[in-house]
């Protein structure tokens, strides 16, 4: 059975997807953007599976949904570790090309 909140979340997620696609060039220039955006895609995949499990293959899709949720969180954690601990995204005011 499909829950309303899951549909709303999915719709909002699709809206974010549109935003991501529309701003992909700017997002690509961000540090570690590929990992972060992958994390978002996997998250969105989980949201899609949540809705779909209400129609068919409930148990399997639920399993995949939680797998996506875990995968998304791992990707975000990796991104976080990569850009914050390794300093890739840490902006420094005095950074200069010279």
């Amino acid at each position, binding site marked *: 059975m499909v829950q309303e909140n*899951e549909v709303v979340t999915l719709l909002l*997620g699709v809206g974010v997807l549109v935003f991501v696609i529309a701003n992909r060039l700017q997002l690509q220039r961000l540090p570690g953007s590929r990992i972060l955006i992958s994390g978002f895609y996997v998250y969105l995949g989980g949201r899609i599976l949540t809705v779909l499990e209400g129609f068919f293959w409930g148990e399997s899709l639920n399993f995949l949904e939680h797998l996506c*949720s875990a995968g*998304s969180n791992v990707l*975000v954690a990796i991104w976080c570790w990569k850009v914050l601990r390794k300093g890739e995204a840490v*902006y420094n005011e005095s950074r200069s090309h010279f």
Partner: protein
Amino acid sequence: MNPVAIFEIFAFLATLVALIILWSNWERAFRQDTRLLFAGLLVLTLFVNFSNVLEWSGITRDMDTLEDYVQILAPLLWVFFFYAFIQEAAAQELRESRERFRSLVEVTSDWIWEVDANATYTYASPNVKNFLGYEPREVIGKTPFDFMPSEEANRVAAEFNAIKEARRPFSGLENLNRHKEGRLVTLETSGVPIFDNKGTFRGYRGIDRDITERRLMEEEREKMQMQLFQSQKMEAIGILAGGVAHDFNNLLTTIQGYTEVAMLKVDGANPIYRDLNHIHYASIRAAELTRQLLLFSRKQPPMELTPLNLNRAIKNSLEMFRRLIGEDIAIDISLGIDLLAVCADAGSIDQVIMNLVVNARDAMPDGGKITIKTENVTIDKEYCTVFSYAQPGEFVCLSVADTGVGMDKETIQHAFEPFFSTKKPGKGTGLGLPVVYGIVKQHGGWINVYSESGLGSTFNVYFPAVFIEPEEKSDEAISLQELQGRNERILLVEDEESVREFAAIVLGENGYVVVAAADAKEALDIFEKEKEVFHLILSDVVLPDQSGLQLVDKLLLRKPDVRILLCSGYMDEKSQWPVINEKGFRFIQKPYTLVNLLRAVREAIEPV
């Protein structure tokens, strides 16, 4: 345990790690808003994971409803986070771009500026201080033309306005600016027009480059090229003059000599005598012209510096001046009393006086007055500070003033440059004053010129004074009778037939027995045949088969007591001056006059 619960624990732990990393880098991670959004996203995810762990491990489902609602916020936090992150990156890029621009502006040696549509500075980089001595704030609000001399400002403004009207970029616009300290600075300006989003013209943005030193170097290089060109020209003149001098002097010897011979045979009252005198005078001038060319090209024989009195030199030349300047020009001589002597070459001094007088004459086409003045002057240190080329001490000043057309400043600057002449073509060689300058410099003196257009000119020539009494020369008093020979035998060696004939006639008619030869071989044969009974060998230095010096060496081996007199039409190294001087032979320069020849022969046979 349910595998979903395991996934959720795994997800929970991953999110927790991410949160810990963010927390530990809180101060240096992102901008405040990005940081809060990211933290919010992580906390929300952590709550969802926690709720799911509780649910799927079978502990409780109490948080399920709340989790469902909280989950809705997740996409919103994602989008806000992305948006804030993009904004932060854009802001960072802008900061970096500004920093890059600032670094460029500070590092570049150029001055970067912006002007509005009215050409008023709206920005000036700090380098303006190095260029013009002003701080940027002193420049902003002013126009570029405010820093230029007025004439230059008008020129550049006109040029810039045309560029501005066309709204086109420009480069290499040279302009002269006045530095805050007063000196002039040459800038090279380039710029591009600025338009706003609507395409409205807003002004110009560009750079200025200081090219003052480059300009100076270019000018210096041009000057050096000019000097090189000038020296090459002088060299060419020297070669040309040296080349023609020999033949020309031989011709002049014949012309002058035969004219003098003819003049001796004609009564002074006879009109023919006057005509001959004209020819004689013209030949003297021709000889002078050759001499001037050689003097200027520095091919002249070494100067003979002897103490001489300028008053006497002027008096001796007075008659010639009167002939030179004509009747419509008065001549006023004011000779200094007790004038000190100068150590100088008599011929060169005559040349100086003559050239200055001729120059004065040419400055007065409608007549006027020439004043020649001499005086002793003491040059002090104060004078030397004004005229850096002067030296303190006792000097004799020769002043030649005229009431002619005068010279403007520009003409005075070029007056001593060779071939510079304000006279009509064919009227002047442009060598008169340069020769004067060269001679005066060689004598350790200098020249001051005072002149104004329409008010005449005064040339003051300063020679170092010497405290030696000049010897009285009695040459002028010597008459032809005293120069007559006493049947002495002379071997005349001269390859130029006309000169040989002239010399043979003059010497033959004046008491000498002359045997002439056209070359060295013939001379040696004659010397052999005539049993070496010659008192004097009069030989040209340059002969067709060997040099006159080689010939006299051979003759001296056969008769060591024979007297030697050499002559040459060359004035350069071909005259072999150093060797002649070294060996102590007497020498007479062609073209020689009758009297000069007789005197030289007499002095060679009977040394004083």
